[in-house]
């Protein structure tokens, strides 16, 4: 189902145009990278503040609260560009191990945000009142840094894998053909052996 969705979406008019476009694709990719610099920079600084390694002359509450809205704008830019990039090569990305890993890491990010939301991000003022930053806040920051760095690296990795779509398609047709034979009986596709089916696709 996901696969057929991927195949459908990449052949919609918008994504076909984006894939074939000479300049728009790299421009969207550049905007994605600018989003990483701005949005990723704010994430790193928030995490480093929680770890007590940067922006120490500002309160944790200031850093967490005042970066919240700009981070959302950054996420909006990066995610929009990312969806445009992924959508234009959706079927290839479906098979791409780095893309799959990246999606799993996003799910992990959401889970960790939910886990630490109440104790760390919802009331950062509390963290300023304690003499030292609580362990769970530091843990949240360390996990966040690790996850976002891994996500950036996975993103870079996507470009290094090119799933062989021709071979995959041939194999899918072969499998469908076998299923068809099993269903219709052994003599329904006379004169066609596996090799023929594979090579005609």
């Amino acid at each position, binding site marked *: 189902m996901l696969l057929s969705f991927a195949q459908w979406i990449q052949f919609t008019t918008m994504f076909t145009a984006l894939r074939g476009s000479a300049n728009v694709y790299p421009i969207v990719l550049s905007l994605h990278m600018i989003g990483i610099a701005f949005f990723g920079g704010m994430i790193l*600084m928030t995490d*480093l503040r929680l770890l007590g390694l*940067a922006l120490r*002359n*500002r309160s944790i509450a*200031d850093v967490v609260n*005042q*970066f919240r809205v700009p981070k959302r704008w950054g996420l909006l830019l990066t995610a929009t560009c990312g969806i445009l990039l992924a959508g234009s090569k959706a079927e290839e990305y479906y098979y791409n191990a780095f893309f799959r890993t990246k999606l799993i890491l996003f799910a992990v990010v959401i889970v960790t945000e939910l886990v630490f939301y109440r104790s760390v991000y919802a009331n950062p003022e509390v963290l300023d009142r304690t003499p030292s930053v609580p362990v769970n806040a530091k843990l949240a920051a360390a996990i966040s840094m690790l996850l976002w760095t891994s996500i950036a*690296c996975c993103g870079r990795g996507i470009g290094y894998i090119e799933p062989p779509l021709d071979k995959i398609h041939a194999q899918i047709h072969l499998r469908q053909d076998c299923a068809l034979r099993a269903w219709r009986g052994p003599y329904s596709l006379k004169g066609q052996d596996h090799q023929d089916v594979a090579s005609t696709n």
Partner: protein
Amino acid sequence: MLITNPLNSSALAFPILECIHIVGFAFSIGTIAIVDFSLLGLGLRGGSPAQLARSTWLLTLGGLVVMLFSGLLLFSSDPDMYYLNWAFLIKMVFFVSAVIFHYTIHRKVVRSEVPTSNGKLVASVSLVLWAGVIFGGIFIGFLYPGLSVRF
């Protein structure tokens, strides 16, 4: 004498260096952007940009050093290609301008405790220059060597 670059004998060296390069620019350009946005009145408020710059300059410099050295190593993998790639040349123009701008005019405006009227202009120029570096970097991979566009 033929010298082989060990970078080219490993398939993983280039992508790993690229990741380091990306994390380097997230630190350097990220921290510069935070200061620029505060000059523009966005993001971190309540303190002066000078105060912000005092706590981020080391990360900016560290990020720049990481970015520069990983970039030099990436460049060494195929110098001829980069030399003939106009996106790379534009990137270098933006990069050198951005670094010079950052450590001269930008620094002076950010460090001045009294808010100057051209703070917003300086912040915008800085953001545009660094965005230019990123655009140039991405377009390197979309051009064929030899000053022509591949598509």
